[in-house]
Every structure is written in structure tokens, then in C-alpha cells.
């Protein structure tokens, strides 16, 4: 399972990077969204996908049977932060469009004397 997951993660990263290199602002933001999904799955896979019980203490479950709680804690933090970043990006894109009338990154380059 981990090997297949690794390939899927690579695929997600590939798609994310390809989107982020595009010209359209909204695609770039979608790309960052995909990137964080890939990163979350990567964290999960790194810890190992074994474990027959969720990491909640229960009667009759051996310590080794719990799924690894550490990646889960990291991912939980990461999900929230990626949400914050995504919404911030969206508002920046919205404002940039309002002010400048475009979402094409090539046109957002700035001018020579504007450094």
C-alpha cells in the first residue's frame, strides 16, 4: 500500500507544480491546494500506514496496534494552516484583480521604474 501511495503522492506533487507554473492566478492557487493535499498524504505515509486501531486509548488494544499519532497531529496542524493560506491567497487574487483587472501573472510583472 505504501508504495502505491508514494506514487500517488508523486503524482499529486507533479500536478500541483505544473499548475503553479501556469499563468493563471486561480490555477496557481488550486496548485497550492493540491500541494498541501500531497504533503498531508506524504506525512501520513512516512509514518507507515499500519496499525489496526485509531490512536484513541481503548481497553484491550495493544500499544503497537494504534496507528502512528505523530503524523496525524502534524497533519491536523497543516490542514488548518493550509486553509488559512489558501483563503489569504484567494483574497489577494481577488484584490489584485480588482485593482489591476487581470489574473495573468505575466501581466503582473511590474514596470522597470517600479522597483
Amino acid at each position: 500500500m505504501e508504495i502505491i501511495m508514494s506514487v500517488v503522492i508523486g503524482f499529486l506533487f507533479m500536478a500541483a507544480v505544473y499548475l503553479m507554473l501556469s499563468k493563471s492566478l486561480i490555477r496557481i492557487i488550486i496548485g497550492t491546494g493540491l500541494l498541501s493535499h500531497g504533503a498531508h498524504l506524504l506525512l501520513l505515509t512516512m509514518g507507515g500506514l499500519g496499525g489496526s486501531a485509531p490512536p484513541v486509548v481503548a481497553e484491550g488494544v495493544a500499544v503497537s496496534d494504534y496507528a502512528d499519532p505523530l503524523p496525524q497531529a502534524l497533519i491536523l496542524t497543516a490542514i488548518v494552516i493550509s486553509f488559512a493560506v489558501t483563503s489569504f491567497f484567494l483574497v489577494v487574487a481577488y484584490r489584485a484583480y480588482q485593482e489591476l483587472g487581470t489574473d495573468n501573472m505575466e501581466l503582473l510583472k511590474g514596470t522597470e521604474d517600479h522597483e
Partner: protein
Amino acid sequence: MSLVLLIFLPIIAAFFIPLLYKKLGQIHTGWFVLLLPAALFIYYSTLLPSIADGGSRISELQWIPSLDIAFIAYIDGLSLLFSLLITGIGALVVLYSIFYLDKHREQLHNFYVYLLMFMTAMLGVVQSDHLISLYLFWELTSISSFLLIGYWYTRDRSRFGALKSMMITVFGGLMMLGGFVLLGIMGGTYSIRELIAQAPELAGHDFFVWALILILLGAFTKSAQFPFYIWLPDAMEAPTPVSAYLHSATMVKAGLYLVARFTPIFAVSSTWVWLVTGIGLFTMVWASFWALKQKDLKGILAYSTVSQLGLIMSLLGASAAAFHVEDVIGTYFVYAGFAAIFHLINHAVFKGSLFMVAGIIDHETGTRDIRKLGGLMSLMPISFTIAMIGAFSMAGLPPFGGFLSKEMFLTAMVTLTDFNLFQFDTWGILFPVIAWIGSVFTFIYSFYFVFHTFAGKHKPEELPKKAHEAPIGMLLSPAFLAILVLIIFIIPNVVGDWLVKPAVAAIQPFIYSSPQEVPVNVGYWHGANTEFFMTLGIFAVGFLMFWTLRKWQKSYDLYPDGLTLNRLYDNLMFLSDAGANRFSRLYMTGFMRSYLVYMFSFVVIIVLGTFVLNDAFAIDMNNLAPVGLYEIVIMLVLVGSTLTILFSKSRLTAIIALGAVGYTVALFFVIFRAPDLALTQLVIETISVALFLLAFYYLPQISRKEERMRFRLGNAVIALGVGVTMTLVALAAHSGKAIPSISEFYKETVYTEAGGGNIVNVILVDYRGFDTLFEIAVLGIAGIGIITLIKLRLTKKEGQHENK
């Protein structure tokens, strides 16, 4: 008293200057500053008797013991002489500046803070026994010189001159640091005394010549030797007290100090003898020749300073040659070292007074242009007398101090023809000839300076101010120095015994073990020998050429402007500026895509490179979780949604597909036993999609001209690279565990230590509580950012760019 502390005394005092300036503004700040160099001068004078007996003082302050770096103040004859010059001339310059700088119009606190900073730096240079602290003080002199030249920072020429001096001297300083490091590697120590002690072993080392050349670069840039002298004339934009102090009496002599200090180590090398003597003498004749082209009083003095520094430099080279002479005592080779130090003292004294006179003329007539000046003799009789004494001493006329050292200089140069090593037997004859030509020009520009200013016809209509004699306070310092010029002539051997001989013993420890052994007695009359006729020739030819100066001075203009070193410097500066700019623009394109490409490429290169270097590719086929049907189905949905994002025409579809990816990730969390994650992911994904759609709703125009993303190979290659890299990372991370995971600790102690059952939650709020706090902070910052972006509307203002 700790000598190290004394070095830092001026810079410590500098902290109080702004306060004194603010609180006691009605008293000229210079009066407070004056106390410090005067007190230091008196203290250093008390060391004279023991040093003149051949003693030395040392005191040490640890700085970075782990790196073996310390402040070591070591005072021998050479250090003490320089310390006395720094504090003595320093005191006179401060006194002069009190009358030169107006307390109401000038930023006195800046001026004196820089000046005191310089004093510490300079004392540090001449007393440091540790190479690294010597280097630090050396650079501090460059920085304080930069600040002082740029003191009137609103003037373009000041800023230009400050930058130029900084560029050249700091370049030399860096080279010197390289030389120091090489010396440190060779000798295994950074202490100059210990290096001198093992000088014979150092000479055979591979790095020896490199260290020699690098250190000479430092000395030549600082002491304004050819071809680096070009910064000194431009440094004349500094206030005149600064020119008198830094750019003639002390800082530019740091290079001479360095050469003198390292003579015991490098004298063994023929490269050293040739470079120091040759460059010095060439600088002397070159600068004295160009001094006559100058129209600015301070310009003349700047070139004259360069020329005189060259003269002293060549004498130091000749004193290194003495190392190679057998039975040197009894020959005329002993004169070179003595003459170098003696002329160094003379130069500091007469050039200081000349600069001050130039400042007085500038102050009282409003111009330094020698073409507008003339006939000031009757209006400014005292200044004229002082200038005459200084200039005649510079020209080498009796009865002034300069005459004595000039004679010894000629003696030393004539003696070099007897030197039969290192091809001196073929080229040696050039030395007295060049020295003679240089001396002739020195004679002419000395007269040019005095008589074109004070004699001739007075032209009051060309002067911005009505000329009159300076106030008595301003005349005090130059008059004192002028009297000193006379005193040195009257009692040269007292000066010799107390100041010169201890310093000579420090330069030539291979000849003398104590100052008393220096067998030089300064006399006024040496008989009708070669030097005597050379001197007569200088006076005769010099006088004739000065008389006809106006006829041939115009021929200087024939020299093409494009061939000057200044032009070379300007072009180099321009090229490096433009080149750096063009290079930056090459990769700073302004497109975000380019920057992302750089980042992703480097991630791939660095991560894969690390993989290859550490042979970290690994696939662990055991310990795999089983593959189930649900997983396969979810995975197919995930891949399908991702492909939809990539290939959809409509952005709306892309957004919804992104949502689908998010939900499948949530399902993965369910399958891999992460219920908390699954719940959070579901909630967040829903809100995210809603947000995307909201933003999408507000960007209507864009949505209408939808098109499919065009395929771009370059992007695809980079994307594929990142994807493959991440797959490898995931495989390797799963396969090898370098250290046991902390998870086991969490699992075992979660109930006993933290009293909770949900391990993930307990980690977040208890074990790693601060992480969560900062996570909330990030959320808060993002929220504030969003509100600001939406609510805040700055009104557009036109023409706000200051740098247009």
C-alpha cells in the same frame, strides 16, 4: 594602566560627545575633545625614557580565547613614535578645528565622534601585536576616514571622494587580511613578535611571496602609492583639519608603519626590496611631477603627500636592503632606516602646518584656487611665515628639519648604487637619478605653493571674501608646528636618540639589539660629497624651473584625459555597477514563474543530489500495509479528479475537482484510522470550495474567456522531476528509520502523564501546546491580512516617488 584600555579610551569618550553637544552647545565641543589626545600624549611621553633605553611595554586583553584572538597592545620604539604622532598631531588638529568649524553651523557631534573613532582605530593599528585585531583596527581607520571625507555629505564631490577612498583602501585591507591569514598558517601564530622570532623559517615557505605581495597591497593602498594613490587627491573634500590629520600626518602613514613593522620578516626577500624601493621611488617622482598641474591648494598638498610617502617608502625598502649587507655598521646603508623614520617625523610636522595654512587661506579668502590667489604676504604675514617655513622644510632647504632628512635620503639612494645583489649593480644607478628628479620637482611645487599664494599681485576682485589674517586661535597649531620644524633642525640628535633610534631598532632587529647601537649621528655638514652636489643641483635647477613655471605649466594639459588612472577607476566602477545590474536582471525577470522554476529545480537537485551522495534509495518490501479494494477505488477517484483539474476547460470544474480531491483525501484518513483528520478535512474542504466559488463569483470577466491550459514541456519536466523526487522521498522515508519514533513515548504515556485518551488531541493541546498556539497565531494573522485587504482602501497619490 592597561595599554589596551588606553586604545579604546577615545571611542569610549565618543559616546559622551553627542550629550555634551546637546547639553553644553554654547561651548565648542572641541574643547572637551581636546583634553583626551592631550592627556594621552602626556601619558605616552612618560613612556619615552624606558623605550629609548630599548625597553617595551605589553598588555593583553582576551577577546575570543577559543579562536586565540586577543587585543595585545605592544609598545616598542616604532609603536610609541606613531602613538605620539597620533595623539600629538591629534591634539593640535582638534585645537585648530575649534576655530575652523563653526559651532553654530556645523554638525560638531558627528565630526568629533568620527574623529575619536579614528583615534582609537589608529592607536589600535600601531599598537596591536595580534594580526587579526590589527586588521580590524585597520578597516576601522578606512571606515572613519570614509565618514570624515563624507562629512559634508550634501556635496557630490564629498560623497564621491569618500566612496573612492573606501573602495581602494578596503580592497587593500582585504588583500592584507589574506596575507595575514597566510602568515598565520605559515607560522602557526598571529602574534607579530612570535612571527618575527621565526622569520628565518618563514622565508622558505611556499606562501611566503604570496603573503608578502598581499600585505604590500594593503600597505600601498593605504599609503597612496602608485597606482592606488588616486583616492588621496579626492579625499581632499574632507574638512581641512581632517586632511591635515588623517590624510597627511597619520592614516596614510599606516601603510608605512605596516611596511616598517614587517621589514624584519620580509627583508630577506628580493621581491620585497625591489617592490618597496621601486614603487616608493616611482611614486615619489610621479606625484611630485603631477603636483605642479594642480590648481587647488589642497590638491598640491595631496600630491605632495603622495610623493613624500613614496620617498619614505623607498627609504624603508633601502633599509630592508641593509639586511643583505655584511658588516653593515660602518657603511652608509645604516642611513636608510634612520632617514625613513626621521623624514616621517619631519613630514608629519611640516605637512601638518602646510595643510592648516591651506585651511586658513580657504577660511579667510573663500577660495583655494591658486590662480585667484596671490599677494597675500602683506595681508596675512603670520600665515605666510608659517607656510614658508613648512614649504622650505619640504623643499629641503636649511635651516629647516626637512633639509637634514632630505640629505640622508640622497645619501641612502646614492648608497644603493653600491648594493650588488638582486641586479642592483645594473639598475642601481637609476635610484639616485630618479630621487634627484623627484627632489627637483619637490623643490618647485614647494615654491609654487608658497609664492603663487603669497607673492605676486593681489587680486581682491576674484576672492569671494575680503582677505585678512586668521584669528590667533587658528594660527596657534600651525605656528607651533612651524616652530617644531626649526627645533628639529637645531637639535636633530636629541630627536634622533629619543624618537628615531628606538623605532629604527624595531625595524632592523637583525642589525641592532638596542637603540643605542644605531650608529647614526646627524650632522649639518658632510663635506663636498656626491649628495652635496646633488643638493646644489636641486636648488639651482629647481629655482630656474620655478622661475619659468608659467611658460611650461601649460604643457601638462597636453596629457590626454582618457589615459589617467582616475578615468580607469571611473570606468571600472561604472562597469562593475552596470555589469552587476545586468547580471541581476538576467535572472531577476520579474515573472513569478521564473522564481518558482528556480526553487523547484533546486529542491530537485539538492534532494536528489543528497540521495545519490548518501546512496539513500530504498524500497522496503516488508512491513507493507495490505492493499484493499476500497483503497484502490478511492485512489482512482483521486487520480481522476486531479486529471480533471489539469485538463478541464472550465475553472468551475477545476474547483469542484479540487474539492473532490480533498474529499478523497478525507476518505483516506478514514481508512488509515485517522478519524480526527477525516472530520477536520471534511469541514475545511467544504469551506474551501465555498470560498473558491465565492472568489470565482467575484471574478466574472475571467471566467468567460476560459480555455484549456496549454501544454508546456519545460513546466512538465520540472513538475515530473518534483513528482519523482517526492515519490523517492516517500519510499525512502517509509523504508528506513534512522532513529526510533517518539510516537511510542506518546502512546505509552498519554494516559499516565497527560490524562487523556485521544492521543492526537493530547499531542496537540498538551505535549506540543505551543505549536498549536502558533498555529492559531498564523490563522489570526491570515485573518487580519484578509480583513485589511478587503476593508482598507488607500487613496492613490501621484508623484510620491522620492527617488525619481
